[in-house]
C-alpha cells in the first residue's frame, strides 16, 4: 500500500542546454557540420582577402574632396573622390548653364516632395497627389527646364545631362508606359480579335528585341517616319523609344494582375449594368493594379537601369557624363576611371535598392495570406 509514494526529493535535473547565446549561435550558424566549418573558413578567408584592400581603397587611402590631383597621382593613393567632388556638378546637371542650376534643383525638390507621400500607403489625398505628380509636375518640369516662358532663358535639351537626364528619362518612361501598358494589357485581354492581335503583336515585338536596337531605331528611323522637314529632338527620340519599350513590359505585368481578378468581379460589374470602361475603371483595374504594384516597381527598377543605354545613342545621361569624365586630363590619375564608375554605381545602386526595398514592403503589405 505504500510502494507508490516517494519519500525523498528527486535529484534536481541539470539546467536545459543552451537555447540562446553566442556559442550556440556560432555552432548552429557557422560550425553545424564539417562541411559547414570548411565553408565558414573559406568565406572568412575570402572576406579577409577582399575586405581590407577594399576599405583601404575606398576609404582610408582615398583622396577626399579638397585633395588635389597630385595627391591622386601618388602610387599608394586609393579612390580619387577629389575628382568626383570637382566634377560633381557635371555629373548631376551635365552642360546645364551654371547660373540656371536652381531650375533643376526646384524640379528635384518638387519631385521628391510629391513622390514621398505618393509612396506612403497611409498618406491622405492620394488622388490630388497623383494628379500633381503625373499631370502638373511634367508641365512644370518642361517649363522650368526648357525655359522660353515667363522670361526664363531657353535651355536646349542637348545641354541637359547627367543624373538630371537619367531621372527625366525614367520619369517620362514611367509616366508614358503606365497608361500605354494598361491600354495594351486591356487590349490583349479583349475578346475583339483584331484589337487582341494588334496588341499581342505589339507587345511581343517590343519584348523580343533588345533595347539598344529600339534606341537605334528611334534615333535613326523615327526622323524617316515623320513628314519631311520635321526635326525631332534627340532626347525626345530616345524618350519615345524607351517609353514604347517599357510599355510592352508594363502591359505584361498588368495583364498578370488582370488575370488574377476572379471572373465574378467582371460579371458583377456587368450585372450592375456598367459599360466596359466603367467596369474596367471602377472595378477591375483598381484591384488589378494594386495586386501588381511590386511588379510595376520592378519594371521601374529595370527601366531606371536601362536608361543608361541612351548613352550609346549619344545622350549625356549619368553614365555618359561619367564616361566623358574619364578623359578629363586635368584629373588624369591612375584611379580616375575606376572612381567615376564606382560613384555612378553607388548612385544607381541607391535608387534601385531603395525601389526594390519599397517593392518588397508593398508585397508584404498586400500579401495578407497566411505564411509559414
Amino acid at each position: 500500500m505504500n510502494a507508490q509514494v516517494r519519500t525523498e526529493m528527486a535529484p534536481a535535473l541539470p539546467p536545459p542546454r543552451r537555447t540562446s547565446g553566442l556559442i550556440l549561435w556560432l555552432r548552429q550558424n557557422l560550425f553545424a557540420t564539417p562541411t559547414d566549418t570548411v565553408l565558414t573558413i573559406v568565406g572568412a578567408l575570402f572576406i579577409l582577402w577582399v575586405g581590407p584592400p577594399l576599405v583601404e581603397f575606398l576609404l582610408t587611402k582615398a583622396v577626399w574632396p579638397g585633395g588635389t590631383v597630385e595627391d591622386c597621382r601618388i602610387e599608394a593613393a586609393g579612390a580619387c573622390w577629389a575628382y568626383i567632388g570637382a566634377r560633381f556638378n557635371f555629373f548631376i546637371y551635365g552642360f546645364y548653364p551654371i547660373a540656371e542650376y536652381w531650375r533643376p534643383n526646384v524640379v528635384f525638390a518638387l519631385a521628391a516632395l510629391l513622390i514621398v507621400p505618393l509612396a506612403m500607403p497611409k498618406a491622405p489625398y492620394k488622388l490630388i497627389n497623383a494628379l500633381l505628380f503625373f499631370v502638373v509636375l511634367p508641365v512644370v518640369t518642361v517649363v522650368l527646364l526648357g525655359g522660353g516662358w515667363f522670361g526664363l532663358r531657353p535651355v536646349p535639351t542637348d545641354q541637359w545631362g547627367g543624373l538630371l537626364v537619367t531621372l527625366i528619362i525614367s520619369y517620362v518612361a514611367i509616366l508614358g508606359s503606365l497608361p500605354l501598358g494598361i491600354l495594351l494589357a486591356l487590349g490583349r485581354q479583349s475578346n475583339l480579335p483584331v484589337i487582341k492581335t494588334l496588341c499581342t503583336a505589339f507587345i511581343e515585338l517590343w519584348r523580343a528585341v533588345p533595347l539598344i536596337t529600339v534606341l537605334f531605331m528611334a534615333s535613326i528611323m523615327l526622323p524617316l517616319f515623320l513628314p519631311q522637314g520635321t526635326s525631332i529632338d534627340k532626347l525626345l527620340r530616345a524618350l519615345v523609344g524607351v517609353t514604347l519599350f517599357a510599355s510592352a513590359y508594363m502591359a505584361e505585368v498588368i495583364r498578370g494582375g488582370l488575370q488574377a481578378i476572379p471572373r465574378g468581379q467582371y460579371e458583377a460589374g456587368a450585372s450592375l449594368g456598367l459599360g466596359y470602361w466603367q467596369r474596367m475603371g471602377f472595378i477591375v483595374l483598381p484591384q488589378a493594379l494594386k495586386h501588381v504594384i511590386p511588379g510595376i516597381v520592378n519594371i521601374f527598377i529595370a527601366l531606371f537601369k536601362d536608361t543608361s543605354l541612351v548613352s550609346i545613342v549619344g545622350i549625356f545621361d549619368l553614365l555618359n557624363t561619367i564616361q566623358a569624365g574619364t578623359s578629363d586630363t586635368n584629373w588624369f590619375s591612375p584611379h580616375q576611371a575606376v572612381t567615376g564608375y564606382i560613384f555612378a554605381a553607388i548612385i544607381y545602386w541607391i535608387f534601385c535598392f531603395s525601389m526594390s526595398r519599397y517593392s518588397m514592403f508593398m508585397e508584404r503589405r498586400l500579401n495578407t495570406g497566411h505564411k509559414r
Partner: protein
Amino acid sequence: MASIDTARQAPTRRFSLNDPVFRGIFYQILVGVLVVLFITWIVNNTAANLQAQNKTSGFDFLGKTAGFDISFSLFPWSRASYYWEAFLVGLTNTMLVAVIGIFLATILGFTLGVARLSSNFIIARLATIYIETIRNIPLLLQLFFWYFAVLKAMPAVRDSLTLPFDTFINQRGLFVPKPIPDDAFTWVWLALIVGIVAWFGIGRWAKLRLYKTGRRFPVFLSGLALTIVLIAASWLLSGAHVTFEPPVLERFNFRGGIALPPEFVALAFGLVIYTAAFIAETVRAGILAVSHGQTEAAQSLGLKESDRLRLVIVPQAMRVIVPPLTSQYLNLTKNSSLGAAIGYPELVNVFSGTALNQTGRAIEIIAMTMAVYLTLSLLTSAIMNWYNARVALVER
C-alpha cells in the same frame, strides 16, 4: 392585372452602337482602318524622305563587298567579304558569347541561389551581398567597368600576368593554350557519344524495371562510370593524345594558343556576373516555392536526404524555376547586344553599326537585326510552352 411576360425575346440586331455585337465589329474596323492609315502615312513619309536623301532601298547590298575589318570572327573574314557574311559573323559572335555566358551564368547562378539559402551565416550573407549589389547596378556600367577600368588597365603584352596552365592576361586579352587532338582522338569522341547513348538506355531500362519490380537502379553512377570507362578504354587503346599548344610571347604579341580579345572577355564576364545574380534569385524563389509540407511528407515516407531532394524537392522547384530561367537566358542573349558599346563585334555592332553606317540602308538592316532577336525569342517561347505543357501539374 397584366401578366408579366417572362419569355425571353431574342435580341434584335440593330445597326446601332447600343448593340454589343455591332459595336464590337464597328470598333475593330475603326481601329483596323486607323492602323492601316497610320502605317501608310509612315511608309509614305519614309519613301519621301528616302527620295529626298537620294537613298535607294532593297536587300541588294547584302551581295556587295563590305570592305571593313572585324576584329574577331569565328570564320575567315577579310575586307573582301560580303555584307551577308558580316551578318553571319555578327550572328555567330552573338551566339558564341550567349552560349558561353548562359553556360557559366547557370553554374554561378545556381551556386549563388543555393548559397543564399544556406544555413551557414557567412556564406548566405556573402551571396546576399553579391546578389543585391550586382542586381542594382546597370549592366552597361558594369561592362564599362570590366572593359575600361579592369581589362584596359591590365599590363602591356611584355608584362602579361601569368595565370596557371600557361594562361596569360594582358591589355590585348586572354591567351589560353589551344588543345590539338590528333586523328586517333576521333575514337574518344565516338566513345563519348556511345557512353551518353548507353546512359540514356540504362535510364530507360531502369525506369521499366522500377515500374515492374519496384527495385531501383543507380542510373547516374552506373552511366557515369560506363562513360568514363569507355572513354578511358578508347583513349588507351587508340593511343590518342592531345597536345596543348601554349601561347608563346614573341616580340610584339603572343603567338599560338587561343587569343580571346578583351572585348569578348569583358562582355562574357560582365554578362555572367550580372545574369548569375538574377538566376540566383530565380533559383531561390523556386526552392522557397516548394512548400515545407513536401519535405515533411517525404521525410515521413522515409526517403533519405538525397532522395528527398532529387525526387521531391527539385522536380517541383524546377517547375517554378525553368520559365523565369529561360527568360533570363533570353535576357542574356539580348543583353549581349551591349557588346556594341565596348566594341565587341556582335550582331548590333557589326550589322546595325558598321554596315548601317556604310550602306545607309537603315530600314533593311534594323529590320534584319530585329528579326533575328524576334526569331530567337519566339523559338524560346515555343520551347518554353512545350516544356510547360510537359511538366504542368496534372489536375482533375
